[in-house]
């Protein structure tokens, strides 16, 4: 009989449903097949013209009905699609989830198509004065909803019958992990038996791409898109902007067992530490990331030598991969050379607000399947980063525990520790 309380006397949190969408496809089966065969979802941008853009590739989701309908519509559809898969797998009614919703999604802004359409609605005046004039004279409620931060979660709450005020959050590129962390914490506080945590991001607009590009964050390796994302390689030159989503049904182990649900994994621990060094760069000694990893291990009640695999943040930017290696080697010491550390982003790119949730989903599948997805494009190793990155080809392995890292602009560092089985 598994323990229902953890080492600190809190309810053990199980995962009973997983859903995922990435540029590799819709659903767990399609994604897992592609991920373990080392396939890349990175491709040339077709959603908008790439004239004048330094980066012309991405991992955009181009195969959903909302793919051309703007960030808000696509982010919603991504969230809904992943959550439906997760809730169905958990064996729960789609309309009666009856637990809180935590949604990690990108900050919303009115799309340019809408700004331009509004502007064309009149001939007098200019700039925002005209936009405001048109707005007050016509019904723009659909547009309004796309620019309200709470709208996507509100619609999801309606559809899934989640309980109470849904929380929409952003911790930049750590958002997906934070959504899971909030669900874990709510269950541990005894506020609910289950929570729906979703990370979704369909915000790869031209403006978003240009903004990241102006910060020199993106790979400009346009010639062979599938080769552009190369975490831990010597010639890595930035991340690849991407879209996707994942949803987890989190549930107290007690509730899961009581209703006979299949336990897909355990959310053992969460750790967090913010960085006060710089808006985009990490403290040179890596102490905040180190602190986050250690906090997650402590929260999980595991020692360093009890982690079997690290699902890296591994963005393929020069800065991240160097800092991530520094923090991992500080925490794990010499043993880090022997722990497999792979980056899903080598295949799916950086899905921003969704990344932490997608990578948690893949971490759970890694343990269940006993197969570690590779870091592809590892042709030119960075000699200063001595890691077993599971180069280029998947590896069979017994993986009982995973550390998944998520680091974001604004000094956000969040780590999750997951386990295959309850204790």
């Amino acid at each position, binding site marked *: 009989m598994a323990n229902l309380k953890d080492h600190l006397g809190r309810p053990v949190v199980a995962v009973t449903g997983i859903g995922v969408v990435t540029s590799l496809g819709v659903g767990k089966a399609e994604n897992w097949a592609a991920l373990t065969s080392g396939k890349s979802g990175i491709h040339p941008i077709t959603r908008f013209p790439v004239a004048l853009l330094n980066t012309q590739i991405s991992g955009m989701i181009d195969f959903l009905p909302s793919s051309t309908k703007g960030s808000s519509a696509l982010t919603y559809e991504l969230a809904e699609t992943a959550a439906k898969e997760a809730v169905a797998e958990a064996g729960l009614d789609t309309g009666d989830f009856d637990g809180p919703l935590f949604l990690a999604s990108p900050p919303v802004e009115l799309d340019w198509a809408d700004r331009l359409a509004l502007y064309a609605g009149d001939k007098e005046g200019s*700039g925002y004065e005209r936009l405001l004039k048109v707005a007050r004279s016509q019904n723009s409620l659909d547009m*309004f909803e796309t620019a309200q931060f709470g709208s996507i979660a509100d619609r999801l709450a309606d559809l899934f019958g989640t309980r109470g005020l849904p929380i929409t959050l*952003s911790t930049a590129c750590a958002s997906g992990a934070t959504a899971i962390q909030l669900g874990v914490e709510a269950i541990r506080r005894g506020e609910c038996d289950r929570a729906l945590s979703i990370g979704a991001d369909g915000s790869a607009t031209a403006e978003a791409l240009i903004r990241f590009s102006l910060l020199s964050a993106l790979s400009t390796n346009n010639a062979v898109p599938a080769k552009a994302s190369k975490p831990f390689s010597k010639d890595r030159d930035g991340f690849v902007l991407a879209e996707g989503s994942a949803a987890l049904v989190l549930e107290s182990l007690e509730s899961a067992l009581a209703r006979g649900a299949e336990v897909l994994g355990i959310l053992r621990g969460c750790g967090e530490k913010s960085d006060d060094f710089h808006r985009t760069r990490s403290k040179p000694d890596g102490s905040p990331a180190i602190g986050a990893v250690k906090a997650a291990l402590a929260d999980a009640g595991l020692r360093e030598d009890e982690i079997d695999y690290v699902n890296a943040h591994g963005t393929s930017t020069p800065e991240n991969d160097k800092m991530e290696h520094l923090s991992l080697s500080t925490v794990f010491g010499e043993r880090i050379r022997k722990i497999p550390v792979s980056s899903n982003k080598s295949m799916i790119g950086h899905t921003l607000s969704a990344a932490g949730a997608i990578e948690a989903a893949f971490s759970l599948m890694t343990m269940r399947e006993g197969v570690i997805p590779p870091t592809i494009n590892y042709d030119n190793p960075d000699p200063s980063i001595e890691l077993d990155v599971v180069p280029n080809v998947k590896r069979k392995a017994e993986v009982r525990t995973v550390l998944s890292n998520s680091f974001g602009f604004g000094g956000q560092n969040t780590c999750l520790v997951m386990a295959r089985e309850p204790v």
Partner: protein
Amino acid sequence: MVNRDVVISGIGLVSSLGEGGDAHWDKMTAPGVAPVTDAERFHPYVVHPLPEIDWGLQIAKRGDQRQMETWQRLGTYTAGMALDDAGIKGNDDLTATMDMVVAAGGGERDEAVDAGVLAASENRTDRDVLLNEKLTTELRPTLFLAQLSNLLAGNISIVHKVTGSSRTFMGEEGAGVAAIETAAARIRSGQSTHVLVGGSFQTEHPDMLLGYELGRYLHRGPWKPVWQRQGSEGGGVVTGSGGAFLVLEAREHAEARGQNIYAQLGPVVSGRTRRRNGGLEAGIAELISRTELPGGELLAISGASGAHAATAAEKAALEANPAIAARALSSLTGHMKEAQFPFAVALAALAVSRGAGYPAFEAGEKAFAGKPASVLATAVGYHQFEGMALVSAPR
């Protein structure tokens, strides 16, 4: 499960009325105080503008100030005031272990760049290429960071060294409600000992007004107080720039370090009424019933926005309880979106701490002459989500 008392041990406030708890108390308890408004800049909309602020008082480095647009600067400034007030600012042991939940929207876009794209769009059919042309050459690279929702929290970490956990909740008034509800729950359960929580809103940017006006929520024409806007031209919301941050703390943690306590934070409740089907009034009444109201006369600080439907529903729900005397804070400050609920909670804390109520903010608000032991704070979203909290004297 432990159940610790949550107290409010620090307050930072900025609005058109001024800055700081004391200044707000003095202004808002002076009978017949006139709101500060600007009816010219964004005609036909009235806004409550920011007062003049010496940013250097809370953001020492000019380099840090330059990295932020007004919304982030305002939030970072107000957060610094709250930390100062709680005796935490500059105490590295306390800031390094402090958790943070920030309620945020987005930051200010570059108005000139946007206007340039819009103007050029009239002579172009290849508008997507036009966007690439303009945005790649005219956007300031660092502006992105000044707009990102979670970078208000990021700047607070950098400037004030608050480096425990950091979460940013997005979503108008509901984000402010959820931020306080989550922070309080963390402290009650022992997950946190002290939390910085709050938000800021800078309305003096046309894109921020557009966010409301796409839903035709803004009041037009001459300024009116909150409860008197029904039937007026426009949607009823008058916005204001401002910020509110609170330091919430476990009682024993605050007492152990000899910190002044303003108030105890009682139940924080939130909801999501499916408003399309009506029923908002009943939803608000249900929230009131969950706040464990004490008997007798009760002061309420209402965050009502003025939005016609939501404000009418809140008014009816509050008036259904004859013991409640409500004050609509937006009559004096304007609607501050994500900062609205933290601001209402702060004003409630000031009242129980001072042992006195606020006079009516407008004609028609019921008199309240007693010494409030508890004050209700509400925020009913102009469009969605609602919440409230009961704030009580510290004991």
